[in-house]
């Protein structure tokens, strides 16, 4: 048991928060029906839906989107300069964030720093420390505690903490129903922020409720009743008691208790055992998202921060080979200025509403390699990535960095030695210009059933960026229901998203790039400000939020 009491003069807190939930929601009743012949007991899980990442999403891409949701929000905090300033002042302004920590148990790379890819996609600059934390369902809360400790260590620079999870589950397993894919991102820094850290506590116990060994594609899980009664019910209360005692608080003082467990009865049992108010138990999003593993405590925390008023106490728990407990108290900063509450771009709540139902369980099985589909001879093309090629072009590929001509102002992707403007063609006049935050509109499109794709049809088309520049680019998040959906008409607003471009199954590599996703539905949930978005966004025309 560790004990870390914080001096009150060294306040640290969460200054910004955000999240990401994939748009696609698999309907659990469809899954239960498919397995009814095999295991009718699964009908107990048939209610609601779970968020499922598409084939081109993983823990890295979802972390990038969660971080964009966080950093692109409307914060009164002066921790982050708006992207507009960063763009005009060059690289330095983006180097405000000093650490990027990514927690997951489903990192796409075992030996290539996953947080490093996230940092490059966010263009955080190279003077930054990056860190992956994994190995346990507790990784998300451990990453947050680590960030608090670094922040308390005195350096003034903020830390970006992300949790992201895309768990692969065996067909007809309970986990297939209870898991969800999601990510959350929190900006931690000295100062109270929107939620001040009161105390944290950790208890380490090698309680193995499940495990995944090397090369094992799926979790091996022990009996649920034992996990609940001997694991959660004993280890969590012990840690909660510890953190409450460190903060000098009574259990009844807790307003929100985030317990990231899908096990039925666990929450009620712990509340009863610890004396927490019954109403403090937060929705674990089981019916609308599913449990996102190591990311889930951060997802739940981010969700609560969207709606809770100032001066509320939040208890967040992470469970896995022991327990982390974090106590936070929301501050007046959450009330915002002029009555305008600060918040992320969409947040977990916004992402929960930004959804479409997916009743195609076969597609889920196929794209997750749970069913061997005939991929055809076209799939055999070699998708090797030249590591030299990727390294040389990494800013272009990971940061969607193109060029802007200093003579005529034309923006283009990719950058080139000679300006693309037919009326300019100046040599060596290009400076870096990223398009990742620039709204775009669609000029043309198709739904291609000939080209090989993990999830046909392959949607792609020409998009035009606000302020100039255009590119033929893959599309993401196109809703099912025909190749000529209304969201696919020339002029439709698009938003760039970071995705897997290609998988190379022969070598276990995957390359990332940006895709254009319909931005139309985002306008419903967008926050009121353009802070953190590209300068061109305020110029009218396409708006991805606000």
């Amino acid at each position, binding site marked *: 048991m560790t004990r870390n009491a914080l001096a009150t003069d060294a306040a640290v807190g969460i200054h910004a928060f955000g999240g990401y939930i994939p748009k696609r929601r698999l309907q659990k009743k469809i899954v239960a029906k498919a397995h009814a012949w095999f295991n009718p007991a699964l009908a107990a899980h048939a209610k609601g839906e779970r968020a499922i990442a598409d084939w081109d999403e993983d823990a890295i891409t979802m972390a990038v989107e969660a971080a964009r949701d966080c950093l692109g929000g409307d914060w009164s905090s002066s921790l982050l300069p708006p992207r507009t300033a960063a763009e005009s002042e060059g690289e330095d302004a983006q180097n405000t964030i000093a650490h990027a920590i990514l927690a997951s148990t489903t990192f796409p790379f075992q030996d290539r720093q996953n947080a490093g890819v996230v940092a490059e996609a966010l263009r955080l600059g190279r003077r930054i420390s990056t860190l992956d934390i994994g190995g346990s369902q507790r990784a998300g809360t451990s990453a947050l505690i680590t960030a608090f400790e670094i922040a308390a260590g005195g350096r003034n620079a903020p830390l970006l903490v992300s949790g992201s999870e895309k768990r692969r589950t065996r067909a007809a397993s309970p986990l297939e129903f209870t898991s969800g894919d999601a990510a959350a991102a929190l900006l931690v820094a000295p100062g109270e922020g929107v939620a001040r850290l009161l105390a944290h506590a950790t208890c380490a116990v090698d309680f193995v409720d499940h495990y995944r060994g090397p090369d094992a594609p799926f979790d091996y899980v022990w009996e649920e009743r034992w996990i609940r009664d001997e694991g959660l019910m004993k280890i969590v209360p012990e840690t909660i008691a510890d953190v409450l005692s460190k903060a000098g608080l009574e259990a009844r003082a807790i307003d929100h208790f985030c317990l990231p467990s899908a096990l039925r009865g666990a929450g009620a049992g712990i509340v009863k055992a610890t004396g927490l108010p019954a109403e403090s138990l937060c929705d674990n999003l089981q019916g609308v998202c599913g449990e996102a593993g190591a990311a889930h405590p951060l997802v739940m925390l981010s969700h609560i921060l969207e709606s809770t008023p100032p001066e509320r106490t939040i208890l967040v728990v992470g469970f896995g080979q022991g327990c982390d407990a974090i106590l936070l108290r929301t501050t007046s900063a959450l009330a915002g200025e002029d009555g305008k509450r600060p918040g992320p771009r969409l947040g977990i709540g916004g992402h929960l509403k930004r959804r479409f139902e997916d009743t195609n369980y076969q597609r889920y099985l196929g794209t997750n390699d749970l069913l061997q589909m005939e991929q*055809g*001879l*076209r799939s055999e*093309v*070699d*998708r090797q*990535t*030249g590591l030299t*090629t*990727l390294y040389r*072009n990494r800013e*272009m*590929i990971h940061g969607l960095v193109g060029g802007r001509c200093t003579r005529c102002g*034309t923006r*283009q*992707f*990719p950058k*080139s030695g000679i300006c*693309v*403007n*037919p009326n300019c063609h100046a040599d060596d006049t290009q400076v870096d210009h990223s398009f990742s935050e620039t709204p775009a509109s669609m*000029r*043309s*499109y*198709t*739904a*291609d*059933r*000939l*080209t*090989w*794709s993990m999830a046909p*049809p*392959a949607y*792609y*088309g*020409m998009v*035009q960026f606000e302020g*100039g*520049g*255009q*590119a*033929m*680019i*893959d599309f993401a998040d196109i809703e099912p229901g025909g*190749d*000529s959906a209304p969201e696919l*008409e*020339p*002029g439709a607003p698009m938003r760039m998203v970071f995705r897997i*471009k*290609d998988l190379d199954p022969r070598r276990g590599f995957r*390359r990332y*790039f940006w895709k254009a996703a319909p931005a139309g539905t985002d306008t419903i949930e967008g926050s009121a400000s353009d802070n953190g978005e590209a300068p061109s966004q305020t110029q009218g025309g396409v708006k991805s939020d606000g």
Partner: protein
Amino acid sequence: MAKGIRDKIAIVGMGCSKFGERWNDNAEDLMREAFTEALGDAGIEKDRIDAAWFATAIEEQHTGKSGIPLAVALRLPLIPVTRVENFCASGSEAFRGAAYAVASGACDIALALGVEKLKDTGYGGLPQRSRGSVNDLYWANFSAPGAFAQLASAYRARHKIPREDLKRAMAHVSVKSHANGAKNPKAHLRNRIDEDRVLNAPMVAEPLGLFDCCGVSDGAACAIVTTPEIARSMGKSRPITVKALQLAVSNGAEAQHNSWDGSHLMTTRKASERAYEEAGIRDPRQALDLLEVHDCFSITELVTMEDLHISPEGGAVKDVMDGFFDADGALPCQIDGGLKCFGHPIGASGLRMLYEIYLQMTERAGERQRQKEPALGLTHNLGGFPHQNVCSIVIVGQSGA
């Protein structure tokens, strides 16, 4: 100011293999089939040929690189052979090389031959392949039909044409080409189809259905060129001569610059303007008698009618529906079936187009023969994709035209 190629080159012999699924033939067999016909047509021995240009686009599927495969297949007598590749304009590029060589005086007689053997991939359509190590990192995952399908949505948006109207005009393009192909014994696809069949076909790349897409074929075609003087000395009293040879290649503006909206082909407009200038044609809609354009997809043929300045901008749908380009229309387009039905062995296609115009002008087109002997004909190739392509234009005609 360069005066161009007009009437400096004569075509004295042409040949074309049967196009189609030539399961039992290698590329070399197809080359020999086309060449034997052309040599007989020219009435010369092969040792009269001073140099050759050899076109293939996807050589890794059949012959491999270099000019050697042609020299070996035809047992050419150690003459210069240059292999050219410029996507689907490769065949026209070979013709351009041979014509320029003769026009320069470096050769008296030159051969242009194109071949493609595509039916060894194990699947339909063009081969799925890498686009280059940097391009693979960011290019959209597009196929040829998908890249050309973009034209349809952009064209609809530009000209505010209802989806159904455009789809129906596209269907007419394909129905017409099938009717023409049915009369061509060398064509790959010889079945007649109706509009309903086109409209109800499975989708390949929205809005292009199966019948909006051309066939992928095996085949070869070739041309033997010389000067008009030598042609006459060979007994060709009224040789078909070259009026214009033009090429326009994208420089990235379409792909990257907002000046292009995706509804037309910048290169075709530029290349055709230069070709008409070179050929001394003021009004192409009136002057031209035959068109063989790159109808890789129905939508490509439709917008090409505007980019060639035949139909007014936004007016191709009307011309198509009016039958202006039908075999019995004012200006037949793809009277041999086109890429759609004659087939599309990439390296051979530009030369195959010339072959049909040559047959029509020498009144050897059989069932497809136009009543009035055509005086001027145009071929058009489009290599690559609408947003990044190579466009070639060749205009040929009767000696006096």
